[in-house]
């Protein structure tokens, strides 16, 4: 599994990389939406993109709309990971094509649960 982590904070990228690495993911990082789009144009095929909202150059919402507008990336799962917690923003992102939405601060378990819901990590086997 491969994750594309898109956040202008190097600290947050490292935290997310560590979180998904514990779940068996390799990761590529991008500082903003345009750099992430460049990775996709260069042929990167991530299983999931973890996307901040507020970033310079290209924000996360714009990235989502651009990815969803392109047939080539139809299979990429998109998950917002952001401090933006207003209901309207959440609805806007989901309507644009994001599959899931995580509000910062998060715990590693919260990320794991979302990835499990998306079928990207195996769920716990019931006792």
């Amino acid at each position, binding site marked *: 599994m491969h994750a594309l982590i898109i956040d202008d904070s190097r600290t947050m990228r490292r*935290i997310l990389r560590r979180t998904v690495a514990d779940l068996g993911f390799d990761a590529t990082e991008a500082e903003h939406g345009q750099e992430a789009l460049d990775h996709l144009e260069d042929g990167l095929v991530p299983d999931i993109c973890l996307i901040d909202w507020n970033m310079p150059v290209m924000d996360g919402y714009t990235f989502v709309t651009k990815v969803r507008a392109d047939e080539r990336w139809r299979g990429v799962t998109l998950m917002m990971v952001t*401090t933006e917690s207003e209901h309207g923003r959440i609805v806007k992102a989901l309507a644009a094509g994001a599959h899931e939405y995580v509000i910062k*601060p998060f715990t590693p378990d919260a990320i794991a649960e979302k990835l499990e819901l998306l079928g990207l990590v195996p769920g716990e086997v019931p006792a």
Partner: protein
Amino acid sequence: MTATIDIGLADVQMLVEEVWTSFLGADEPVLPAIEPGTPGGWSAAVTISGGWEAQCTVWLTEGGARAVTARMLMCDEADVTDDDLRDALGELVNMVGGNVKSLAASTASLSLPLVGHGDLTPASHLDEVVRLDLTWLGDPVRVSVHTPPEGADR
């Protein structure tokens, strides 16, 4: 036109504790300071504008800022650079400010964070409406929210 919104001390304290616990660990919680100290050292701020205007600022001592950064990056404090510190404190105040914005329940925008060595004094037209004097690992931490005075011309 911007809204006037009461932000409660308890609400801000709860969200600061949540940010601290999520990213710095539950074993060393941030606690109310019995005797407020002066953090000095570093400060980080984000502004909220649009439907509601405010500035959220976090102050930390030099040692506290390095400890926060080392915890977030899971590295030794000796390996923390000033660039690391700016980035980590920026993300910290981004989470605090983003959640304060959510308390206002208005359509507003959050700025990118500003981090500096020293005091990022809020704009002179803003009044302090919340001040949390806290302590973490024995170091003073201050979190404040500034908003325009009620009835101010906006």
